[in-house]
């Protein structure tokens, strides 16, 4: 099912959780909403689910208005961060809940309920726990049961709020891969919220990067990583070397000196240069070169990587960056070096 969020806004008192957000979710894709806490990603998910309503804007499922329908009528499977399993019911009854909640005319018979719940428990590979209570399960098992329960209503869209947020790192890695495979198997349109970029990059077909109630960028993991559209996205995803620069006379200057980078038609003014640490080359300094000059302050790292802390600029405008350097060269503390970003992004500073 295709989901369209159109100009959705939501305020809680003085706090703007969502500010005119537009989003199209394609049928069958696995989409990640990625952002720091307070960026509005969970609010957006809850609005799609029908657990919250926007102050303005629309939500459409396959072009039809969804806001007029309550949560129970949207055919939405919601998986909560803390599972929200019914603790007085067995695993079986938890998964069967959505089937038993159907109006009498659509409610399947007891044998059919049993068959479908068993099938779902097989899907999450936990059939042997059917008669246990949630308190007797591990965190990862509870999460899978919560997923089975959400799938029982044959949802047209599956929404997961920080699905792996309260699990330890090892379980999380395993479940991630499992979710990816499950999605490939059942192919239901899915949106999950996460603040963990690694999770989003590994699992999602597309990533929506959010900050302060805005969508900063929508794209494939490859696109948001390699071609970030805003400074926020560059900083939030992956490691960044960040340098405040100034654009003047068609030259990028740091500390008043040109650094050998062409601003490609950018207007004069303050700007910020972003690069990935591995896209920056360090060479021994040579006199007369018009590039960034720095001094090695510290060398650390053993094994394949050699990491240099380099101070750029003079006393007034100094800035320390960390760069992976080639091992084939000898480096020493106090050495003057040239810093050359091979790949970089230049963003004009917003006023």
């Amino acid at each position, binding site marked *: 099912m295709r989901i369209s969020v159109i100009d959705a806004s939501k305020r809680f008192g003085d706090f703007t959780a969502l500010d005119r957000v537009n989003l199209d979710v394609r049928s069958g894709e696995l989409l990640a909403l990625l952002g720091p806490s307070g960026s509005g990603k969970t609010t957006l998910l809850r609005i799609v*689910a*029908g*657990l919250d309503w926007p102050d303005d804007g629309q939500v459409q499922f396959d072009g039809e208005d969804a806001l007029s329908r*309550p*949560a*129970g*009528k*949207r055919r*939405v*499977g*919601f998986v*909560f961060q*803390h*599972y*929200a*399993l*019914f*603790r*007085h019911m067995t695993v079986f009854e938890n998964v069967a*809940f*959505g089937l038993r*909640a*159907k109006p009498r005319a659509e409610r399947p018979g007891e044998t059919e309920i049993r068959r479908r719940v068993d099938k779902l428990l097989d899907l999450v590979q936990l059939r042997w726990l059917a008669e246990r*209570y*949630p*308190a*007797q399960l591990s965190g990862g098992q*509870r999460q899978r049961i919560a997923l089975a*329960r*959400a799938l*029982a*209503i044959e949802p047209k869209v599956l929404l997961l709020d920080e699905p792996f947020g309260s699990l330890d790192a090892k379980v999380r890695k395993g479940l991630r891969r499992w979710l990816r495979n499950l999605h490939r198997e059942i192919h239901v349109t899915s949106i999950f919220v996460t603040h963990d970029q690694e999770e989003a990059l590994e699992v999602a077909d597309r990533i929506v990067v959010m900050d302060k109630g805005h969508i900063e960028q929508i794209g494939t993991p490859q696109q948001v990583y390699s071609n970030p559209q805003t400074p926020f996205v560059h900083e939030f995803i992956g490691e960044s070397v960040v340098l405040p620069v100034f654009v003047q006379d068609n030259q990028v200057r740091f500390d008043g000196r040109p650094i050998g980078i062409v601003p490609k038609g950018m207007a004069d003014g303050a700007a910020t240069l972003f690069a990935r640490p591995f896209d920056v080359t360090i060479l021994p300094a040579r006199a007369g070169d018009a590039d960034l000059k720095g001094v090695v302050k510290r060398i650390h790292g053993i094994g394949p990587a050699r990491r240099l802390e380099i101070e750029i600029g003079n006393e007034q405008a100094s800035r320390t960056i960390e760069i992976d350097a080639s091992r084939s060269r000898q480096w020493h503390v106090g050495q003057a070096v040239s810093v050359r970003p091979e790949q970089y992004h230049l963003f004009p500073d917003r006023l």
Partner: protein
Amino acid sequence: MLPGFGLTLGTTLLWLSLIVLIPLGALFVKSAALSADQFIAIVTSRRALHAFALSFGLSLAAACVNLVFGAIVVWALVRYRFPGRRLLDAIVDVPFALPTAVAGIALTALYAPSGWIGGLLAPLGIHVAFTPLGIFVALVFIGLPFVVRTVQPALEDLDAELEEAAASLGAGRCMTVRRVVLPTVVPALLTGFTLAFARAVGEYGSVVFIAGNLPNVSEIAPLLIVIRLQEFRYADASAIAVVMLMASLLFLFLINGLQRWTALHTESGR
């Protein structure tokens, strides 16, 4: 083991013995002065049986009413934000704080045929003060905070996500309350019910003012004990007391068992 076990257990046993066990033992010793036939004759006399039926029957009825209305009060206090909520919340404690005699006098003044409420009911032929109905009113009054105060924390702790989960799975409001909210607070409801019931069975102060205390009509068992004591018939008094004690214990065990049974499936964890 944590140090101090011997000391604290010793103190606990001594204290419980002094406060609870020895007085109860004395009660049994006192009633043992009676022969079995005498004992049975006393506790099955018409007056005693009527007092038992009145005390336990009305206490049970009052606890049931408090269970229902207490639950509604808790729901309103916990789930809605409205001006005056904190004041209402404080008012719930009044029956706790009020000396029972004061409550009894106030209720009697209100429900007597000349009182504000009694005056309205009298023309309809409903007499509250000086009838079993009056006792019932007093028992409802003193029992309410027990239900409210035990259920309140349980409902406050109830995760809103549970109800959202039920709603997104297609359950209507009714089904959500019946299958998700209620089962989670049932142990607390049972505890509140038990406390309200136990308190009502033992209630004396507020009841004697409004009851009218007519033998075989509106005389409660605790009052009968007091009357027997004033007649210096100590053995009679203790025989009635023993029956009350046994019946109360039986009820407590039954409800405790029920509580354990429900708690078994709802222990810890989300």
